[in-house]
């Protein structure tokens, strides 16, 4: 008995005003769902020369077989498109969204949506089971994301779930989000601006069906077993239990206490959930983690305005549809400006430590007014614009803070998080090879293990040797050196492709390390490995189909390769990736380690070779494509190679 998939995809052409429901098999079985399925659809549906705001750029929204079921953390949705945020030129990337939208889409009978075209005037898509309409959104245009959702819920049902853009998306701010619920969002990739370019304000969905589950007893058994493990985030056991008693859920079916989620409270007492980076606004004094000094780069501590002001500001950021992360790069950059005596830019005063100024600046960003218009292009593009007008130190600083093709730096051992050797080396490999910052995909797969290492290095190294032998057949894989890290980076990327595709939350899975409930148990353990097959068991219980690890890894590799082909289409190549070398010459904030350019190039060679990519461009070889049954991509890639050679 088959379960999990609904068997239909929606294809919507906003230019033509057409809606079509198509049978989604068998490709959905070859790619499972989520991010892997989206990569397959993108390669087919987005033609090679498409630019970000062309009507032919597609917004692809996918769920996976587990979405809408009881599988823990599975209420997730994936969105992909060409991203306006990517620097120096837009290319294809993805965001994953927690919450309740994906489940509701499946309850309406659909596994995903492919949207192309551009509506003549603002519209929203209204999905109520099989009834799908493109509706007039002239009364919604200009409303913030929160008001839009409240209005559409009133209009459709309180049970309806909504994706929407705020004013930032309408005004094509390059880091505009697509918002859902309180603060779930397709945040980093700027897809809100793509929606805005298409005159698409929102998608509202209300479904009354269910998701078939092949083996419901097996699923229940698995879920109740996992439920006994209280904490999803392995960081949890490093901190005293009881420190934080209220954990928000950021996704349907999340039954864990996640140390990344808390509540803030509005002045009127209303609870506001905050997840992941949102917590730095609403709960804890985390802003100071921006502080960094080394290699000629000085980043000041960000300024938290106090919770009374921060919680409403956090809601405002979500309502305007701005990526919460913008604060973590722009505020310290502006503070550095003032430290260097710069108090205005192009005649506009800057007061980054004044909450009223900051609130006003957020409105300016979202509406592209005054100084906001310049910074709505994102920090790194603003640096190009301001070069020569400001001290070079500030320009260099802005570029380092968004060194990774325009995404805010983190999880690379320098800014915001601490990753000592070897974790930042693994991260560097992910940065050179992926379409966006790898942060979204490695919360739990490897880099949080850095916390264990920093907590008790001797113990962690002993445990890592056992773990590494077990998982990668190499006890040295997590040794603090530069050697042989490519297999770990590739493993992490594939695991995260799987997690983003079936889908589950990457704060909880893959369970590389057992989710200990307390520090003492961890300290007493030799073997800290977790259960790495939970994903397969959940998948089999829901779909009724047997998946083995080799098969699913191959699906992940095929999808990752398709993403790489999308990058090749956009002209990304080794030369661009070599430019990341300078960032890793900055000393690691945790242990001061760094690598010179020669070592970085060696790292690239090691990674490319392990992937089966050529060393000149860093593109998949013909042999690799054949081995992954991607033969149909070979003629186009050959053509791209010829074009590339011609340009040189």
């Amino acid at each position, binding site marked *: 008995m088959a379960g999990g998939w609904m068997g239909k995809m929606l294809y919507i052409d906003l230019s033509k005003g057409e809606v079509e429901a198509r049978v989604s098999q068998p490709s959905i079985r070859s790619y499972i769902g989520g991010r892997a399925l989206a990569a397959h659809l993108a390669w087919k549906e987005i033609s090679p020369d498409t630019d970000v705001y062309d009507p032919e750029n597609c917004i692809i929204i996918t769920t996976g077989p587990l979405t809408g079921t*009881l599988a823990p953390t599975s209420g997730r949705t994936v969105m992909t498109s060409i991203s306006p945020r990517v620097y120096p030129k837009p290319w294809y990337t993805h965001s994953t969204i927690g919450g309740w939208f994906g489940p509701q889409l499946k309850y309406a009978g659909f596994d995903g949506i492919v949207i192309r075209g551009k509506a003549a005037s603002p519209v929203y898509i209204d999905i109520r089971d099989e009834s799908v309409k493109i509706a007039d959104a002239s009364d919604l245009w200009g409303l913030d994301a929160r008001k839009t959702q*409240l209005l559409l819920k009133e209009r459709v049902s309180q049970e309806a779930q909504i994706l929407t853009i705020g004013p930032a998306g309408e005004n094509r701010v390059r880091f505009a989000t697509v918002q859902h619920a309180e603060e779930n969002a397709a945040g980093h990739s700027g897809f809100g601006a793509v929606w805005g370019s298409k005159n698409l304000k929102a998608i509202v969905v209300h479904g009354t*069906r*269910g998701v078939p589950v092949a083996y419901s007893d097996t699923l229940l058994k698995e879920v109740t077993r996992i439920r006994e493990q209280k904490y999803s985030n392995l960081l949890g056991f490093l901190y005293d239990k009881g420190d934080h008693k209220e954990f928000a*859920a950021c996704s349907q*079916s999340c039954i864990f206490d996640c140390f990344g989620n808390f509540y803030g409270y509005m002045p009127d007492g209303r609870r506001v959930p905050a997840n992941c980076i949102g917590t730095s606004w609403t709960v804890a004094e985390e802003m100071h983690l921006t502080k960094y000094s080394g290699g000629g780069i000085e980043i000041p501590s960000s300024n938290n305005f106090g919770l009374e002001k921060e919680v409403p500001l956090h809601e405002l950021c979500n309502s305007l549809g701005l990526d919460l992360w913008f604060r973590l790069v722009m505020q310290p950059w502006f503070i550095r400006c003032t430290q260097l005596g710069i108090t205005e830019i192009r005649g506009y005063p800057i007061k980054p430590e004044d909450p009223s100024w900051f609130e006003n600046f957020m409105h300016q960003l979202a509406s592209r007014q005054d100084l906001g218009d310049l910074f709505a292009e994102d920090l790194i593009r603003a640096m190009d614009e301001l070069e020569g007008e400001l001290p070079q130190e500030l320009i260099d600083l802005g570029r380092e803070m968004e060194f990774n093709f325009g995404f805010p730096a983190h999880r690379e051992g320098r800014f915001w998080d601490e990753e000592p050797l070897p974790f930042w080396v693994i991260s560097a490999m992910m940065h050179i090879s992926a379409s966006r910052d790898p942060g979204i995909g490695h919360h739990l797969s490897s880099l949080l293990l850095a916390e264990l290492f920093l907590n008790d290095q001797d113990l962690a190294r002993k445990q890592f040797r056992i773990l590494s032998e077990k998982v990668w057949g190499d006890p040295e894989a997590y040794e603090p050196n530069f050697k042989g890290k490519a297999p770990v980076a590739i493993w992490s990327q594939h695991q995260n492709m799987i997690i983003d595709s079936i889908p589950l939350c990457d704060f909880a899975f893959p369970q590389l390390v057992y989710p200990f409930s307390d520090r003492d148990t961890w300290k007493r353990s030799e073997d800290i490995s977790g259960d790495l097959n939970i994903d397969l068991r959940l998948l089999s219980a829901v779909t009724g189909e047997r998946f083995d690890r080799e098969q699913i890894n191959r699906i992940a590799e095929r999808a990752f390769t398709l993403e790489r082909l999308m990058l090749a289409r956009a002209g990304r190549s080794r030369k661009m990736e070599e430019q990341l070398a300078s960032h890793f010459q900055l000393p690691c904030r945790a242990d001061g380690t760094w690598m010179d350019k020669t070592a970085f190039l060696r790292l690239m060679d090691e990674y490319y070779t392990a992937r089966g990519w050529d060393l000149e461009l860093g593109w998949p070889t013909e042999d690799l494509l054949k081995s992954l049954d991607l033969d149909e991509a070979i003629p186009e890639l050959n053509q791209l190679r010829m074009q590339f050679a011609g340009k040189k």
Partner: protein
Amino acid sequence: MGSIKRIVTNKKVCRDCQACVLGCSIYHEKESNVQLARLKIIKDMARYEFDISICKHCKNPKCMKECPSDAMYLDERGVVIIIDEKCTRCGACQENCPFDAIYYNSQKNQYIKCDLCVGRENGPLCVELCPVGALRLKQKVEG
């Protein structure tokens, strides 16, 4: 001497994970379908508050009193049960429930409500799954 069992709710701590609802549907109907669950969590987004609708197993159940076909009874645990074979699908129980905790399953043409997972070894599944204690099983022995 009799015992009273019911699920008490604390909507202030609910965080809308829907695990209770989905678990209920899967346990009873073998499908992941919020429409088939014996309880509902409805979110009021404007206030970020949640309503949890689940049978309170009243001492003097109005649903039972108003059932014209004697298709409901209080079992030995104090749990209100619908006898499906006797139910004429008139909907009187649903109309008279003060807690909106009786649901109509249109797929099966059946009225459904919480039975505290009768026969389940670990008690009600929703209680077991709830990560925040928004649902708790209350047992009281009355002499």
